[in-house]
């Protein structure tokens, strides 16, 4: 469970009960709306995906920028595999019910049932929305602006009172020319830390193997 510590702080909030009205989805203004509609239509045709990624994390806690490379496999409706090849081998596979992770240092597979940690679902839903391009559904929680029209660059800022606003300052998404998937995503946190992920060699709708969703996979 150790690799899932990031989610632990959020579990604390399972203690706090309150009625939260589900926000009605907001209608995005044009041309942003048109762009989102186009993206939703394109991304909607993506059933699976495989891509290399380069992630750069600029964190106050670390001396230097951390560069992480690896592969992401995605299969709708809810399977994600994140295989890191450097700086050390690490895998996490997320399905609808469980999260499984492995790393080359401990060499142990840790598994957690999402239902045992209710707030995990909230985090995973957010991740899923960013990685699958379902940006229309995020408009209830984020204000969106179009930073560039071609290729599309969208900037999202958490709305007032939204939980993510406690942590995130902005999320910027750069789409590919064909708008079928992300080319890059950049997250800037309130603390000033930032993460940028660039996707390369993206294959849309590949036939994914079983081994793509196994932890401990070697690239």
């Amino acid at each position, binding site marked *: 469970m*150790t*690799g*899932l*510590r*990031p989610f*632990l*702080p*959020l*579990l*604390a*909030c*399972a*203690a*706090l*009960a*309150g*009625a*939260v009205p*589900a*926000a009605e*989805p907001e209608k995005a203004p044009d041309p942003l709306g048109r762009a989102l509609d186009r993206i939703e239509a394109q991304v909607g045709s993506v059933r699976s995906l495989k891509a290399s990624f380069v992630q750069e*994390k600029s*964190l*106050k*806690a*670390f*001396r230097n920028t*951390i560069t*992480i490379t690896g592969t992401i496999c995605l299969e709708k409706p809810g399977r*994600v595999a*994140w295989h*890191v090849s450097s*700086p*050390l081998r*690490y895998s*996490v596979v997320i399905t609808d*019910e469980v999260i499984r992770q492995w*790393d080359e*240092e401990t060499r142990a597979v840790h598994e957690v049932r*999402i*239902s045992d940690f*209710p*707030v*995990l*679902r*909230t*985090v995973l*839903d957010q*991740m899923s929305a960013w990685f699958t391009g379902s940006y229309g559904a995020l408009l209830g929680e984020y204000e969106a602006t179009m930073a560039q029209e071609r290729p599309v660059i969208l900037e999202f800022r958490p709305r007032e*009172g939204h*939980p993510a606003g*406690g*942590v*995130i300052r902005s999320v910027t998404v750069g789409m590919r020319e064909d708008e079928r998937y992300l080319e890059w995503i950049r*997250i800037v*946190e*309130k*603390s000033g*830390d930032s*993460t940028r992920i660039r996707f390369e060699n993206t294959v849309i709708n590949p036939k994914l193997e079983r081994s793509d969703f196994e932890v401990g996979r070697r690239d």
Partner: protein
Amino acid sequence: MIEGWHDAACRYSRRNRGKVVLAVAALVAAGAAGLTLIRFDGNIELMLPRHAAVLRNLDFLRTSNVSGKVVISVKAASPKATLAELLRAVDRLARSLDPALFPEVVTGVSAKDIGGRLEAIRRLLPAVATPDDLAAIDGMLTREAVAAKLRENYRRMLAPGGMFADASLRSDPLGMTSIVLARLKAATDALGFRVEIRDGHFVSADGRHALIIASTPVAVTDAEGSRRILDHLESRLAGLPEWAGADVACGHAHTVSNEDVMKRDIRLTMAIAAVAFPVLLVAAIGDIGAALVFVIPLLAIVLAVNLAYLLVGTLSYAVMGMGAVVAGISVDYGIHVYVALRARRGGRRAGGRPAREAAVREVTGPVTASALTTAGMFLAFFFSRIEGYHQMALFAILSILLSLACALFVLPHVLRERRPGGLIAAMEGAGWSSGAAVAGWAAVTAALVACATRIEFQSSMAAIDGTAPAILRAEERLGEVWGKKDLAVVVVEAKERDDALRVNEDLFPRMREVVDQRSLATIAGLDPVPETRRRNVARWREFWRGSREENLRRLLGEEGARAGYAEDAFEPFLAGLHSDPAGAPFSELRERFVQETPAGTRVMSFFPDRADLVRRMEAAAGDRAYVVSRNAFADTVARVVWEDMRRMTAATVLFVAGITFLFLRNLKATGIALVPAVTSVAWLLGFLALLGLPLNVANLVANLVVMGLCVDYGIFMTYRSRYGLRTGTVRAVTLSALSTLVGAGVLLFARHPALFSIGLTIMVGVTAGYIASVLAVPRLCAMAGLDLRR
């Protein structure tokens, strides 16, 4: 003596016939009018024993904010419905609930200001850390542990979720906050549900159900209030979209369902009895005029209900449920008088009295003995600790005495001369009682007694719970979806809030010895009382004084550098070691565990409701707290009721045998008169064992009633033999048994398991008692030299 009173009363009523009939009619009319003013009490507490543990549990259920919860599970039944649509429907439903009935409605978790809350939880640690916690933290401060932790944190960065983790990494690199988080997670499990949080809502693992938890001030035992909230819920649920469905779980549904079933059964049984009795009149007696006999118990019941209400101020629905049974019992007196009058019809005078009066005089003794033994049987009900039984006894005794009076002093003046007819007309002379009949009766009885040794006793009150199956199915579905756990509660009560919290804190270590911390949901360890807080903070500061902090700073610097951390990466953490501790950042959570009551403050801790854990927790709590357990509560009620049954049975045997002896004044005759009663018990237990049905609280009570009835048959048949009665005793006993069977038989149509059980018991018991009285008693009297007719 009784005959003397009867003579005086007969003289008066003969001379003032009109006035007597008018007076009775006026009384009955007043009674009928009074019925419309009587408010019946649906409170089920009346049918529970007044035992200290039971009352305490009931008071908790009534006043706690635990039992007043209504759980609504809304389902997206159509696969086309999205989660967003489901959650919108849930929010609309939650907003539509009347705040007067549901002042608090919870649909999920507010995750606002996560960062601030996390920081507050981290700052809480000095205020809640125990010596054990500090020992655990000490174990985190070695070079190996620090290096491993920093490396683990680094690996976290590699995960997709790591993008949100940096804040806690700098403020809590060693993960000390997990100490508080573990307690918080255990505390949240007090909800007892397996939920996921989506978009701030409670959602099931399959994503097709969402949960609403509504609190209501209406007590579960308040039938009227329960109906109000259920009606309100029904109207609101009707507004859900077509593709949505809902299941509701709450104690109020059980209360209303039991009352509805009981009311429906009362209406049905009375309606059937209203048809069945006239049919009995025509088929068995051949005289529709005998309907007057069956009117007597109805009139007596009308008057008895009013009198009982005046005396006790409230009457339970369960009392009225026994109305058909009491009617069947108290009609016997009128039957005996009627049959005696028919047997001695004609204007011949005997001993200076009209033949009719003489006939009634002959049966006055046994009829009165019979009424008094039955009344004595109901008197035994006052030995029970159940208030409902006292009401039942008072109502029944009044009905019986009024029926007796009407049968002896009113009925003879309103019945016309008729020849006896019908199926039972020829029964009197039939010589059914013979040696072979006695042998047959003895053999069957012995065989059933042998079977009776296998009888099982079902102590669970669920056996007599009339809750509709639909409600139980809804609760099952809800349990399957949400994994509802049964939780028991440790309750600490004190006048002052801090006193209650202090006792709870003191008990916390003992509670943890009984139940693993992950299964113990308590505010202890999260929200300490001021002096405990001060003590913990002082201990925390002492812990970090001296070399410990310096050592840690050095280790973090060295190992951090090795793992690529910045030089000042952990400054927020190190500075935070000395900051003022925060107050508990979850007031909403506190409300789940701390409740203000009229008597003071109640602090609750929750754990799995298992019998072994409940016992150990009760021992751990001692006299400083008490444990409320739904499962143990049922066992306690059953045990107390069983103790009551033993007392009531002993009292019944004493009263019935004593009164019988007073009238018969002969031990052998008394023994023979009790044979039908003993037979009824033996046959009942034997048949239940043969049918695989257990003995339960309901049929134990009915068994007492059967004993009282069957001893009446024994008294009459013994009297007949001993004093050579020629008043149609066999006919009367047969008609009495038939009428009781009709009165009890209608209960077989009842849905409520308690009423059904009572009906079955009386059917079997009365049949057995009748057979013994007609087949065995005359022969036994002859064998004992007590048969005057020989």
